[in-house]
Each structure stands twice: as C-alpha cells, then as structure tokens.
C-alpha cells in the first residue's frame, strides 16, 4: 500500500515542480505589474480554447515528442545529448533534398524516403559525437553543442547556395529558402486544421521506443550501460558500442523531427540564420519534455503536449497581456531545475524502501553511508 502511495508521489513530482515554476512565474508577472490570473488564463485560452488552438498545440508538441523520444534513449544510457537542434537541422535538410530531387515519385514513397533521410541525417549528426565519446573520451555535452553550431552554418550555406529556390536566385531579395515541396508530398491533414499525420506517427514511435527500451535486448543493454557502465562491461556488454548506438538513435529521432517539421508544417526549409528559426527551439524544449515525462517514452507524450500548449499559449498571452513569449522559455528552465532537484526526494525514499524491503529496521534518523557520491549521480538516470 505504502509502495503504491510512494510511486504515485514519484509520478506526480514533475507536476509539483511545474506548479512551483508557474508559481515563480506568477511572482515574476506581478513584479512586471501584470495579473497572473489574466496572463495564465490567456495562456490556457491560446492553447486549448478552440479546435484550431488544440490542433496548433498538437502540431507544436510533435517535434517535442520526437526529440524527447531520442532524449529518453540517450539519457537512459547516461549520455547527455544537447545536439538535437543540429540533428533536427541535418535531418530536415536531407529530407527536404529528397523531396526536391525525386519529384516524379508518388507522394507516399517520397514521404517514407524523406522520413528515412531525416532518420539518417540525425543519426549521422548524433553518431559522430557518440563515436567521439566512446572512442576518444570527448565529452558529448561539448561536442553536441559544437555540432549544433556547425549544423546551423551548413544549413545557411545550403539554403543560400546549392539548395536555394531557383525562383529566388533570379530575384534580388535572395531569401535563403528552398523551393516549396510538391503538394503530393505534404503530410496529410487529419481534421480541417493544421494538425497533420506526423503527430500520430510520433505517438506510434513513442510506443516503439517503449518496446525498444524495455522489451528488447538492445534496450536492456542501453539502460544497463546508463545505470552502471562498469558492471555492464563486466557482464559482457560492449559499452562503447552501446554509447554510440544510444547517441545515434537519439540523433535519428531528432532528425525525424526535422523531416516532419518540413513535410508537415513548413513544406520548405527557410533560415533566419539561427537554429531556432527552423527548430523553434524544439531541440532544447524536447529535453525539457523528456525530463518532465521522467525519461519514459509514454510519459513524454503528455509532457510534450503540455509544453506544446505552453509554447502556443505564450503567443496568445503575448497579445493579450503584452508579456513576451520569452517568459515561457524562462519558465521551462525553472521546470527543468525543479524536476532534477526533486529527484533528491525520490532517491531518499528509494533508499528507505530498500531498507524496509530487506527486512531491516525502519530507517534510522541518520541515513546509512552505503550509497553516496558516485552512485548518486548515476542513480539520477535510473
């Protein structure tokens, strides 16, 4: 009974963390002389107030979910992938190129090929830092950040040069964008809104990632490497290879997110010179969503919808109470901080449970020194 109660509390921790973040946001709003009630109700209205609003929320949630799925895989292997922005860009570029080259093929063939191209692009862009970590000991946080910067420049180069819309080449404006994809190549819309098939596809992939992580040997190995690399090596798991696999797959999902962004929403690639111009910040916000979903693929579904809602609602809030949408970025940051901080209580209770289960005395007021330091940081991923 107690166990059940504890696991409910554990599952609710991110919700508490969000309320805490929204509370801090309310204080910030009051400091800026804006009524938090008015601001947050505009946010809600903007995210769920109409059929179109809900559709926009789900459209926004799609890349967050896809990136988040990749993050689940990487973080479960204790590999911190901050390169989803770059992986989305390379995936998007390769997918777009497919649609621009194979203009004669039927729509569904091109869409499948494009998603595969996105997968491949992201996999390459994630696999490189994976290999650098596994075989050269290069910290993946740093290399993925560098890879993001490189990807942005590749995008700018391609869209200003080889991939530029031929129509733009003749104009003086020279907008850095590709030609529009043929209508047949666009992802079908589900209801008469902007909601497209990509959302359903992302949900299906979430189930697939769940199966991969918990029902296959590969998934078991990835998680084992994340929990204890030394024991895994001892147990015969090729740790380096699994690190590469994890980052490669993680990048691949971000790459699919890029492909779907092009085929479901923009129908072309265009750059404002920055990565967020294309990704809308999904590479970072996907991390937030995955953490919020407790690094569980299924949990990441509602989490992505929630953060998609925040992002869409922020625009309405900006119009109604004149609060810049950047507030939501700041709040997302707070959510991350609160969620990772709240892990402490989960770990403490886990320790106590272990002691009770072993039939020992109820935990003394001084918690034993059995697990500390090194194991604590590894446990975060557990």
């Amino acid at each position, binding site marked *: 009974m107690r166990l059940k109660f504890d696991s409910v509390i554990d599952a609710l921790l991110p919700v508490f963390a969000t309320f805490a973040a929204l509370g801090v946001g309310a204080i910030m709003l009051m400091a800026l002389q804006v009524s938090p009630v008015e601001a947050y109700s505009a946010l809600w209205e903007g995210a769920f107030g109409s059929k179109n609003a809900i559709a926009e929320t789900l459209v926004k949630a799609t890349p967050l979910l896809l990136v988040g799925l990749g993050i689940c895989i990487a973080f479960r292997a204790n590999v911190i992938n901050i390169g989803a922005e770059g992986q989305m860009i390379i995936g998007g570029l390769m997918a777009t190129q497919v649609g621009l080259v194979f203009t004669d093929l039927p729509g569904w063939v091109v869409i499948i090929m494009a998603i595969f191209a996105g997968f491949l692009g992201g996999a390459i862009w994630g696999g490189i830092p994976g290999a650098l970590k596994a075989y050269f000991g290069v*910290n993946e946080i740093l290399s993925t*950040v*560098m890879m993001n910067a490189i990807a942005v420049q590749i995008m700018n180069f391609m869209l200003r040069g080889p991939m530029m819309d031929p129509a733009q080449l003749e104009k003086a404006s020279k907008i850095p964008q590709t030609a529009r994809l043929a209508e047949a190549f666009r992802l079908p819309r589900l209801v008469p809104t902007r909601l497209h098939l990509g959302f359903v596809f992302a949900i299906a992939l979430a189930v697939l990632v769940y199966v991969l992580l918990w029902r296959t040997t590969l998934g078991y190995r990835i998680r084992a490497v994340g929990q204890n690399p030394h024991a895994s090596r001892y147990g015969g798991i090729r740790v380096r290879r699994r690190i590469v696999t994890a980052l490669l797959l993680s990048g691949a999902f971000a790459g699919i997110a890029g492909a779907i962004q092009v085929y479901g929403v923009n129908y072309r690639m265009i750059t404002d010179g920055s990565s967020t111009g294309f990704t809308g910040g999904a590479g970072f916000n996907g991390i*937030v969503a995955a953490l919020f979903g407790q690094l569980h693929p299924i949990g990441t579904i509602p989490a992505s919808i929630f953060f998609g809602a925040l992002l869409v609602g922020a625009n309405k809030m900006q119009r109604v109470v004149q609060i810049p949408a950047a*507030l939501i970025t700041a709040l997302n*940051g707070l959510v*991350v901080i609160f969620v990772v901080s709240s892990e402490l209580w989960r770990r403490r209770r886990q320790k106590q449970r272990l002691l009770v289960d072993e039939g020992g005395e109820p935990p003394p007021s001084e918690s034993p*020194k059995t697990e500390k*330091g*090194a194991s604590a940081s590894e446990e975060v991923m557990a």
Partner: protein
Amino acid sequence: MMSPELIIVGVLSSTIRLATPYLYAAIGETFGQRSGVLNLGVDGQMLIGAFAAFYIAFTTGNLWLGVLAAVIVGALMGLAMAFVSVNLQAEQGISGIGFYLFGLGMSELLFKMLLGTVETVKGFPDLEIPFLSDIPYIGEIFFQHNIMVYGAFLLVPIAWFIFNKTTLGLKIRSVGENPEAADSLGVSVARVRYFTIILAGILSGVAGASMSIALLNVFQQNMTSGLGFIAVALVYFGAWRAFGVLAGALLFSFVNSLQLWMQVLNIPISTELAIMLPYILTIVVLVLTVSKVRPPSALTKPFDRGD
C-alpha cells in the same frame, strides 16, 4: 588594399579583444570544475549579466554600476546553482541546461519589457598604457584596449596563483579530487563549492558585461549565441589549468578574428565555412587532448556527508 603589416596587427589585436568574454567565463568555469561542479548554465548567466550591465549603464550612464549589476546578478545565479547542485544534489549537466534556458528567456523578457528596441551605449574607452602602447606593432596589439580586456588577461595569473600557491586553491583542488578525504580533514566541501560556483557565476556575469558594455556596446536577445558553451569547452581544452584556458581562448579567438578579417577583406571564402571553422577546430583539439588529461575525479559528483 591594406598593407600586410596592418592586417596582421589588426588580426592579432582583435584576437586579444575577442578572447575577453571567453576568458572571464572560462576562468570562472575552471574554478567550478576544479571543485567538482560542472556549471553548464554559463551562457544563461552571461546573457543575464550582459543585460543587467547594459540596462544599468544605459539608464544611469555609469559603466561601473553596470559591471556591479552584472556581478550581482551573476552571484545570484551562482547562488541558486550552488544550492541546486550542492544541497539538492541535482544532476549538473541537466540543471545547467535549466539555468541556461532560464537566463535565455529571462534576459529576452527583460529586454523586451524594459528596453523594447536595440539601443547602444558608449562603452569603456580604450586605455593606452603609457610607454608600452608606443612600441611599434606590440603596442597596438596588446596595449590599446579597454579596461575589461586587461582585466580578463590579469585574471589568468591571478587564477593560477590561487590554484597553485594558496591554501584556498589547495582546498578547491582537494574538494574536486577527493571530497571524502577533504571532508575528513575538516574542509567544508559545501562551503568551498558554494564559493567556487558563486565566483563562476560572477565571472560569467562579467563576461556578459564585457560584451554588452565594452566590446559590442549593445544588447540583443541571445547575443552570446552559445559563447558560454564554448567557454565550458575551453576548460576541457585547457586541461583545467588557467594558462591552458588562456591558450585555448587565444587559439579560438585567433581563428575567429581571422574569419572576421577574411570577410572584411573580401577574401573569397564562404562565410558559413569561416564561421564553422572555430567549432570544428574545437572538436579536433578536444579529440587530440582529452584522452591525455584527466578531469577532476569528483567532477559532476554530488557529495553527501551522510548526515
């Protein structure tokens, strides 16, 4: 056409200027990492510092008050980071991303609410060092910069001295290498880490200020565009040593300065490739150096005294 000497002097002089924000942020980060804490929120702290410095300098007209504002907000961000990583023992790589997002959003929010448009300030003026600035070439390269630039370079020997010649430095290093042993010898791991993380926050804030009121003299949303992450990379690059960080910052800003000058001189090289170069270089250098040096043993590992 400019003479070759002028170009070389120009490239080297702007190398020195460009290294400034990297140095402040990376030296601060070195303090944090030496004590076992990875601060990934540098970029966010820099943005908040850059905005605070700019806004105060813009409204009061006093640049030093601007620097002070950056110091204060940097210290506050550092304090929060310290609480989260020392007391709450949160995973540092991830909480750092949280602090980054917070700084990114917060600085843009305040910028739009308080300023609305891009404004400029008259930043710190160049300060010619008597006699030294008259030396041909050398003077122009090294001794005709503003005070924030000199400050960044002075920080390097100071950090070296603290790490290697003081008890404080010894405490920082021992806490980063073996917190259990340090603790048993009566060193307060928590207090040392609070000190280094707050110091890292302050220096990140000043790094931001050096951009907004000394080098560029404007504030724009996301004006650092990931510079803080590079600063973290420079610490690995410099093998956790002050002079190593200096070498990394100089190399990185040299390539950057070369890239800017190639654009100025209309040398036919793709802009995008040129901007990419420093990042590719950083990855290559990380590959070449990282396997040879070992990070502080307790890096990213929270310390639990068990009480």
